């Protein structure tokens, strides 16, 4: 077969795999993997010439791409009162999450760590209160708020008061500030 055909076939296969990953409904989290949290580096600054290494975790990648996990995250975001402070992403007593600014890092590992550990200026620590899988789901959803998830996996509007364009309709924003970004 011709090489363009191979390429097309390869592309189709890739799309198919992406589709499978995106649509998987994984109800039960596998036990937390080592290195899931290790990826979080909060500063781009490091003495010497080498930049800090931030390696994205496989867990992060999985949650980032999966429509079900992200939509579950959206559910928890309301149920666990995240929206009480962060509204529907626009912020309130907590900072806006739909914009490009990230105080404590915008990678999914950072966000998961922020939820788990809390942050000194008012973000409560949910360690032990929110199980690990839900933390990752929440983190994936929070990333999707600024468009940082594959568009087909991002949530659409809720059956609720319309707060503005849904995550799916937002243009992806670059993640600015706060942390070293792993390749994503």
């Amino acid at each position, binding site marked *: 077969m011709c090489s363009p055909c191979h390429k097309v076939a390869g592309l189709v296969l890739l799309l198919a795999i992406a589709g499978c990953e995106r649509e998987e409904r994984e109800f039960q989290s596998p036990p937390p993997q080592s290195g899931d949290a290790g990826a979080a580096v909060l500063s781009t600054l490091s003495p010497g010439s080498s930049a800090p290494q931030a390696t994205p975790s496989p867990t992060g990648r999985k949650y980032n791409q999966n429509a079900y996990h992200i939509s579950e995250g959206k559910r928890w975001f*309301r*149920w*666990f*009162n995240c*929206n*009480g*402070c962060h*509204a*529907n*992403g*626009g*912020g*309130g*007593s*907590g*900072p*806006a999450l*739909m*914009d490009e*600014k990230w105080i404590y890092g915008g990678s999914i590992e950072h966000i998961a760590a922020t939820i788990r550990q*809390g942050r*000194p*200026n*008012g*973000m*409560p620590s949910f360690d032990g209160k929110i199980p690990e899988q839900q933390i990752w789901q929440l983190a994936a959803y929070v990333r999707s708020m600024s468009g940082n998830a594959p568009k087909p996996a991002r949530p659409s509007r809720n*059956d*609720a*008061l*319309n*707060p*503005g*364009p849904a995550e799916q309709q*937002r243009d992806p924003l670059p993640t600015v500030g706060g942390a070293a970004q792993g390749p994503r």
Partner: protein
Amino acid sequence: MNIALTAAAILLGLMIQSSTAQESNSQPDAISPRSAAVQEEDGQWLMAAKNYASTRFSGLDEINAMNVKDLKVAYTFSTGVNRGQEAAPIVAGGTMYVVTPFPNYLYALDLTKPGAPPKWKFEPNPDPSAQGIACCDVVNRGAAYADGRVFFNTLDSQTIAVDAETGKELWRVQLGDINKGETMTMAPLLVKGKVIVGNSGGEYGVRGWIAALDATTGTTVWKAFSTGPDAEVLIGPDFKPFYAMDQGKDLGVTTWPPNAWEQGGGNVWGWISYDPELNLIYYGTGNPGPWNADLRPGDNKWTAGIFARDADTGQARWFYQWSPHDLYDHDGVNENILLNMQWDGKARKLLVRPERNGHLYVMDRATGEVLSADPFHAITGTLGVDLKTGRLRYNPEKEPKVGRVVRDICPAAPGAKDWNPSAFSPRTGLLYLPHINICMDVEATEANYIAGTPYVGMEVRMKAGPGGHRGEFSAWDIAARKEAWTINEKFPVWSGALVTAGDVVFYGTLDGWFKALDARSGELLWQFKTSSGIIGQPVAYRGPDGKQYVAVLSGVGGWSGAIVAGDLDPRDATAALGFVNAVPDLKQATTPGGTLYVFALP
């Protein structure tokens, strides 16, 4: 009806009209608004509301309608905190005390020296985590001065007494638990050697209380909750509410679903007035929690109402509920102005309350009877007050529903006016009211109570009210029960008002203008653009040099300015509990700041 009778009726009507008109013309002496709660003018500003009657009227008249146009900046001072500056500067002796938003620095400025340099700075170091549970910016509404001590509250629920001269801490007490969402933002009131303070957290399911602390030691003299059993609310045999709806045993429990009062709100974060003659303090209780009223059937005593309590014992004397079973987050914590004046031909002790629901209540402050409740703003959410039963009548079409957006509820959750206090001038008989002309679309949703996190259950989207302007500043003639004049503002007016014996009214706007109006006509006489939006409370004082000064803090924030102070995203209409949608353009109009401005004539 025969003709003669009709003619007589008309004639009578005309006579009454002309007589009231005469009366209002012949003010200010015909009404005697002075009460014992108003101290003699001494050129100082010892408490946020100026006096126990909360008039915010300064007897100084050096700056008047004729010369106010020449007002110039005398000096400025940066507070070093760029969040919403809601406090009133306190002036005692030759010193000005300014308390900032979190981290609640307390500055003493030496007014005797040129440029008023700081004398000392007190850093209370509150827990930074408290920032996460402040519903509407990390504000503080001011300190209070008494007997050489300055008292103020910190965001993490401490009350602190500081030596006014040295800036040394005298005592501090922890009154609330931030892990439950409890904060303190209100300005304390000093009554008979007691510091009266209350908590905030109505959006976090915090049970509201008011407490009197011994001014010398900080120990609690009495503490009264706003919900729960009578014993904890300090309701005893003296309790004589005027209306049947407030009478009964343990209403703080039985007007709630089982145990719901434990997370019922009713926080005391607003203004307290005091009548030395009756020895009663008056204060409002905040909204019941959560906002979604379906989750708390019943009247939800004793939230969204006003208590009169014995200042010594804290025992309740009477209670009146502005919003039984509050539907719209209408905290009942606004200022209560205590006036002695003629009402229906009789001299009465009155309490005047511009309430969030858009009605201006005039009450007998001895009994708690509502004498009148007139709308001072456009209203769709309610249909007036039934003066027989005292009940507010809700508009059934505008009751928030679960799962359905109810549109155009006016006034919105912040009310026709929020905490930002009005001022009353006995010289004009007018009450000067900052308005918020905002309506809202709401959807009631399920609310989940998790201690230390918001407990609201409402999606809100606010927008400009009728006319498209979002703020107003008006003067209300209390005796004539009508509006004297009003001017429109582009943004909601979130600052307090100040009126002086020079017949000048001062207030600030969200986009940073500090304005002076003619107290009688409302004519704009002077304005000055400050560095940030103004949500503070202007004060007037006589400096050590004998000149009159006007001071205000500039620094946008609070609920209304959260979009700027918190850098919120206007694409989300529900951001800052929906307020952002009403002021999406505020970021273009102003930036965060924190500067004290003091003005004087050259």
